[in-house]
């Protein structure tokens, strides 16, 4: 009986080609759009996380603050080899780690250009993911291994008015609050990576030590990269306990990036000395979660509007179809088809239409997404700030495609339920007398 209804439903779809193509195309378009939207959101999230976790934070960070007086704080850890020894064996999830300096300085060029910079101190030879995110357009990343060198981003050039080989003076107070300067040579200029390249610049670790007059073994944070970044929160909690047991003063978890803790919390507290601060990538990239939340809200709104349009469209079209086929329904009922059969027939018809439309839409969406990624479409600068990338990247995930197909098909079938019930309730005699 089920196959009979399926056959009738399929024949109905084929018999009404125009309507089937129209409705199927609409469903396919909605599915394709949904896949592209989800791909765009996932792409932005992926790009932001990849850029953020390479440029600004590890999955888990062991940083800290030194306060020489109540009002004077610096984002520093001392004797990090000892901290590394304390962590040994406690992070089986660890993939690799890097040690990064943290600092703030005013950069002033000989040409007169100047701007405030957030400095990252690194040993370029030990950085693995850095080269995948930071793409030099001039100079060489390898030259960052030399002391007194700096890497800038393209968007900083108009303000600093420098090029590769030029000298920049970095001026900053030390942890004791005494002003110091270091002259650095610009060795590389990298392609901008959105928000994070607005203020960030990278110097060799040695340069930061010199600027802040720190002993070797001092740095900004130990950045730990895990096999799975979702383990960050439990790993951070475990490390807080491990480090406290090892005798370190450890700050409580606080979902804020280190620079906000520095300016808004640590300088306001009365303690002096040294405290460790264990943070996760979610804490350090909290501004990204704000952007992603806004993006998700926008996506949800768009999807809701799309969903409502689909439901209304399908209901309306099926309603018209039932009106047109009232006599046909009456005949089917007269030759013995039960009400449930009629209901199933219309639902199967909607299901077939939804299934076919969504599969076609998924294929279309994948093709368009692939094409956009292949074309590496450039995005305007204002959009780059949010995307953290200069090209549009769509990350279409299999689960998202499957979800879109199932969701749109389900909505199509659900939208058909009411018209199908109305069709099933028709009396055979009155239906056969209907002239539509």
């Amino acid at each position: 009986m089920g196959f009979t209804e399926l056959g009738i439903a399929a024949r109905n779809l084929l018999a009404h080609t125009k309507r089937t193509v129209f409705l199927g195309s609409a469903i396919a378009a909605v599915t394709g759009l949904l896949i592209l939207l989800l791909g765009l959101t996932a792409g932005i999230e992926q790009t932001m996380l990849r850029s953020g976790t390479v440029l600004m934070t590890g999955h888990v960070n062991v940083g800290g603050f030194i306060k020489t007086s109540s009002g004077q704080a610096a984002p520093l850890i001392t004797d990090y080899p000892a901290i590394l020894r304390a962590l040994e064996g406690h992070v089986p999830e660890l993939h690799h780690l890097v040690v990064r300096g943290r600092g703030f300085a005013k950069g002033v060029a000989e040409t007169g250009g100047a701007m405030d910079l957030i400095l990252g101190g690194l040993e370029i030879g030990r950085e693995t993911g850095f080269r995948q995110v930071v793409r030099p357009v001039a100079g060489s990343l390898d030259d960052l291994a030399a002391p007194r060198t700096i890497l800038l981003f393209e968007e900083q050039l108009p303000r600093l008015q420098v090029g590769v080989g030029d000298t920049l003076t970095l001026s900053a107070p030390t942890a004791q609050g005494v002003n110091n300067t270091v002259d650095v040579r610009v060795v590389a200029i990298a392609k901008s990576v959105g928000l994070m390249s607005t203020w960030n610049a990278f110097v060799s670790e040695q340069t930061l030590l010199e600027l802040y007059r720190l002993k070797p073994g001092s740095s900004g944070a130990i950045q730990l990269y895990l096999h799975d970044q979702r383990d960050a929160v439990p790993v951070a909690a475990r490390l807080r306990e491990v480090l406290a047991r090892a005798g370190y003063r450890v700050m409580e978890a606080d979902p804020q990036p280190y620079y906000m803790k520095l300016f808004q919390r640590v300088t306001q507290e009365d303690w002096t000395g040294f405290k460790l601060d264990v943070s996760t990538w979610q804490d350090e990239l909290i501004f990204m979660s704000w952007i992603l939340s806004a993006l998700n809200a926008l996506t949800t709104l768009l999807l809701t509007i799309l969903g409502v349009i689909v439901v209304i469209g399908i209901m309306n079209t099926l309603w018209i179809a039932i009106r047109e086929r009232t006599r046909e329904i009456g005949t089917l009922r007269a030759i013995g088809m039960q009400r449930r059969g009629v209901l199933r027939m219309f639902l199967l018809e909607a299901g077939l239409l939804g299934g076919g439309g969504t599969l076609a839409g998924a294929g279309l969406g994948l093709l368009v997404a692939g094409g956009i990624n292949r074309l590496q479409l450039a995005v305007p600068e204002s959009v780059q700030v949010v995307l953290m990338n200069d090209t549009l990247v769509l990350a279409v995930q299999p689960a998202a495609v499957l979800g879109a197909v199932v969701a749109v098909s389900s909505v199509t079938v659900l939208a058909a339920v009411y018209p199908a019930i109305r069709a099933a309730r028709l009396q055979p005699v009155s239906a056969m007398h209907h002239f539509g």
Partner: protein
Amino acid sequence: MRQSETFVSIILLVSVLFAQIPRAVAEPLDAAGTVALLRAIDERQRSSGDFKSLVYMEQKERDKADVVYEAVIYRRDADDKWMILFLKPKAEQGKGYLRIEKNLWLYDPTVGKWERRTEREKLGGTGSRRADLDESRLADEYDPTYEGEEQLGAFKVHKILLDAKPGVDVAYPQTRIWVDQATGNILKTQEHALSGRLMRTSYFPKWQKVFSESKPGEIWYPQELRFYDEVDRANSTLILIKQVDLRPLDANLFTKAWLESKSR
């Protein structure tokens, strides 16, 4: 009777001390003489009672429109208390810094919050710091090295290199000062970073004095202060000190509550 005798004696002692300065400094100085000169500079500016002045600050900064601030500075040197309350421009009105027990606090009325800041912070985004507008503590904070005599424009000056004493809280570890041999006034300073780089040049072309009954004696203060950023050369600050008032201030003036009440 005894009180008036003591008063007269102090006046005479102070007069003799200041009468000595021009003669004492109008020739190359040895180490002891250099330290004595620093002490004399500090003493000339010391106010034993309260000190209030109206100041105008003009800030020139790269890529920004010039800003003129009007503020009132309050000092109670005996307790190391210091406060500045901004009156203009409108955006800065009610903002203030308060120094209590070596802690500098900033009050921002727009958010109604106090923030602890470093002693060396630039005030309200200008090129000046708290120490520029507070009492002089050169002898306490620096070890001097006499570098010789020089001609600074029309003035014959002593050039002295000052190195910050260990553990002293100063923004620049090394400062060079040019002291007018005729008056004992500082006419120019140059401050250097730890790296040795010149960071800021300051000029003090006009000095004024007011008589303090509580000191008792004259208190000297620079009427015009010009600060030039030597790293970012587009930045400079001009400060004019007006209407110095040495009358006693309210006892509860140097409190957070008082500053907050002024911003309402």
